[in-house]
């Protein structure tokens, strides 16, 4: 499962940061940078689970300003709104990989995730930018569709 979800998760995360946040991911080398802020999106459908996006404190204001087209640092509330929207878009783009393009999934509104899920992710990807790191993790509640 992790292998089959890794590629769509990476693709969804990369394209979302690129097209919404105007940030191009760099090769990940060296130590991971501290993550400070997180957002989670729960989803329900043939499977249930959530996607969690956590970013460095130095990355969040930059990506939020880019999304807003602002040269000024957005308010923290707007930064968190931007974080939630990024998580929402990544989630919407990765759930089709779970059960195919015709499966219907409902996404809940993004919520702040102060701490990580504390369990093994079905797939995860780290994106590195000049401004910091972003960790995207996909968690599944059910390992397989009910018969």
């Amino acid at each position: 499962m992790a292998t089959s979800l890794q590629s769509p998760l990476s693709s969804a995360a990369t394209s979302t940061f690129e097209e919404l946040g105007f940030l191009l991911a760099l090769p990940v080398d060296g130590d991971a940078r501290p993550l400070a802020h997180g957002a989670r999106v729960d989803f329900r459908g043939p499977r249930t689970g959530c996607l969690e996006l956590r970013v460095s404190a130095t990355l969040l204001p930059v990506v939020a300003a880019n999304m807003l087209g602002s040269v000024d640092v957005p308010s923290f509330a707007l930064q968190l709104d931007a974080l939630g929207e990024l998580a929402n878009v990544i989630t919407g783009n990765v759930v089709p990989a779970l059960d195919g393009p015709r499966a219907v999934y409902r996404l809940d509104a993004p919520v702040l995730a102060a701490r990580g899920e504390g369990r093994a992710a079905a797939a995860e990807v780290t994106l590195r930018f000049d401004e910091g790191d972003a960790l995207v993790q996909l968690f599944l509640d059910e390992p397989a569709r009910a018969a």
Partner: protein
Amino acid sequence: MALAILIVDDSVVMRAMIRRTLTAGGIAVARIGEAGNGQDALDAIASDRWDLVIADLNMPVMDGEAMLASIRAHPLTRRLPVIVVSTESSETRVEALRRLDAAFVHKPFTPALLAGEILRLTGGPDGHLAPVSTELGGDVDF
């Protein structure tokens, strides 16, 4: 014709991104309104004239599908052009939206993609909409 456009999304940042796309994408805009959910959008549609609605799907209070169904069910708004801008990737749900005569733009979108869809729906930079907007304005009761 400059358009009156209502942007419906629960994310302030996404509404700002769409607003920026409109102003930077060559769209002739008369005015832009914003709503944070489907119910607020219906209230805005009931009280003012709009040429185009750009709406998210997943929103609190009333989601975009329910809002779209209400718009299509009312004789004065059934032809109001609607573009759904969403992360939705299910072919099943996208087909349902198209049956409700909504255009669809997938998130993440490029400014050019959204602007292109608006121009297609409104007949291009020099085009004009069907006179649906003249039917609206103050007397619509959802």
